[in-house]
């Protein structure tokens, strides 16, 4: 179902998500230092980098959670300016953040529909603005079943009663259910056990099979090399190089991202 070893540097198509020259400073710390980024249609792009390299800042800058100080972001060739995650979501970009972005005391269904709730039709919905709980719960249940990630007994149970893996599952299901153009996953397997990680990786492949490109931020080299079509190596706030996982080993990638080894010219570029 995937062609794992396409040579990505020969992209004839334009990138679907494209960032140029992004800069973000926090006081005296430069988290993004003139960073570029490209995501092509239908691919899984892994973003790797050491702690503090600025991966999460990059993801936040392209998903609207942070507004970059400089630089431009293009979606399908059109320049976009996201000032909130909601802007990005309206354009079909869904993000699973490392901190999961859920309200612990609210139910699974409430969380999945946070910010895009369904209202009942007719008087109850339009005038009394009543939520369509049954519809939202049915949808949430369907998506979680599709995902097969967990055995949720009660879709109304508060998220805080779920285990870490189950919460991750809900977050991924939310992104997969609503993301129509790009899905961004920040460390989706970091908190998970072996089997749960496997399910998330399968889900990633399924989403890709639907033709939706994915950005996967991860520390886990075996996972990255297993699913990624291209690997964006991030170091010191910018893109160091983009690797084809077929041409490099995991230890090469680790050496590049920690600065133990400099990439040769062919690896640089897109």
């Amino acid at each position, binding site marked *: 179902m995937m062609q794992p070893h396409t040579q990505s540097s020969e992209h004839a198509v334009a990138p679907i998500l494209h960032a140029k020259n992004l800069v973000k400073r926090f006081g005296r710390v430069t988290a993004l230092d003139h960073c570029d980024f490209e995501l092509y249609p239908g691919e899984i792009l892994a973003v790797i980098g050491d702690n503090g390299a600025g991966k999460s800042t990059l993801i936040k800058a392209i998903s609207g*959670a942070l507004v970059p100080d400089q630089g431009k972001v293009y979606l399908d060739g059109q320049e976009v300016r996201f000032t*909130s*995650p*909601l802007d990005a*979501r309206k354009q079909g970009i869904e*993000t699973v*953040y490392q*901190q*999961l*972005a*859920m*309200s*612990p*005391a*609210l139910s699974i269904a*409430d*969380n999945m529909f*946070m*910010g*895009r*709730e369904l*209202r009942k039709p007719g008087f109850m919905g339009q005038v*009394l*603005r*009543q*939520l369509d*709980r049954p519809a939202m719960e049915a949808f949430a249940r369907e998506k979680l079943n599709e995902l*097969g*990630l*967990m*055995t949720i007994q009660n879709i109304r149970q*508060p998220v*805080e*009663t779920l*285990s870490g*893996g*189950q919460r991750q599952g809900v977050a991924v299901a939310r992104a997969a259910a609503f993301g129509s153009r790009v899905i961004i996953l920040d460390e989706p397997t970091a908190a998970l*056990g*072996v*089997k*749960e990680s*496997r*399910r998330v*990786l*399968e889900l990633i*492949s399924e989403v890709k099979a639907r033709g939706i490109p994915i950005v996967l931020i991860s520390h886990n080299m*075996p996972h990255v090399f*297993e699913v990624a079509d291209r690997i964006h190596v991030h170091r010191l706030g910018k893109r160091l190089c983009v690797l084809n996982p077929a041409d490099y080993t995991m230890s090469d990638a680790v050496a590049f991202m920690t600065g133990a080894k400099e990439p040769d010219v062919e690896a640089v570029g897109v």
Partner: protein
Amino acid sequence: MAKSDSNSPVHESSLGSAPDAVASFEDDRAGFIKKLQHTLHLNPSMVPLIVLLLSIAVFGLLLGTRFFSPFALTLILQQVQIVGIIAAAQSLIILTAGIDLSVGATMVLSSVVMGQFTFRYGIPVPISIVCGLLCGMLCGMISGLLVSRVRLPPFIVTLGMWQIVLATNFLYSKNETIRAQDIETQASLLQFFGTKITIGGAVFTYGVVFMVLLALVLAYALKHTAWGRHVYAVGDDKEAAELSGVKTGRIILSVYMLSGLICAFAGWALIGRLGSVSPTAGQLSNIESITAVVIGGISLFGGRGSILGTLYGALIVGVFTLGLRLMGADAQWTYLLIGVLIIGAVAVDQWIRRATV
């Protein structure tokens, strides 16, 4: 998800034979206490309801029909109506993990605006009332903007607003009270909420009806509308709410404005209760409203609790106050017991919270 065997790398090949249940959990918590803890966790307003019913029963047994009569029980409602309304406003703010120390001042200023606009400028009463309501909303809006846009802590903002609004109230009213007889003869609409409905021995006022309706409407809005869910989400974890697409700034602003408006309604109800417009009334409203909220089981850290709990909290205070007075006890006993209740309520809240996992 049957593909897992074909896709997975060699070192995970044994996964296919591993049991399929992932992170499933069984509810092995036996025992009444655990079940109670879990139920209370899901229904946070049950604790104050139980305490309320128990305290009514105890005072009823001790005092007999002196306490357990329609008249005495509805008297409690009348005595808590102002605090009940203010506490509803306070609940909204506390649900967003804020606190409003200016509720009492906002209430009094609004009532003074209603009275003075009518009597000093001769403005028709309905318009004066609308101006008073707008005044309360404006006070809430100022606090809301400072909290949501300037990002100052709610405690500081409303501590400042308390002083500002209260001083404005004294400066503007020149510390004058408008007498009850004048209002009754010239502007009886100001005393609207004091209108009594008598059913048998039970006496209700419009203010009491308003308090109950307000609690029901807010309970509906919080539970069944997107706005309500967002209020909880903001109080629960503001950053997470923002990332999941809630416009947190707008929600916070709307909550402070609504709360200011409710305080203004409390100001109107205050005229009904006192008969007069007094700039020195309602000095204890801040602390009384926070007491009702805490006894009602709303977490001061935000995002947990229900508005009906607050109503029960206000009623518990009313029951204790009247019950102890009828028993002839020193009024200090009331404060002492309310202090115990506050600490008890928070302790129970912490205990319930541990039912989380």
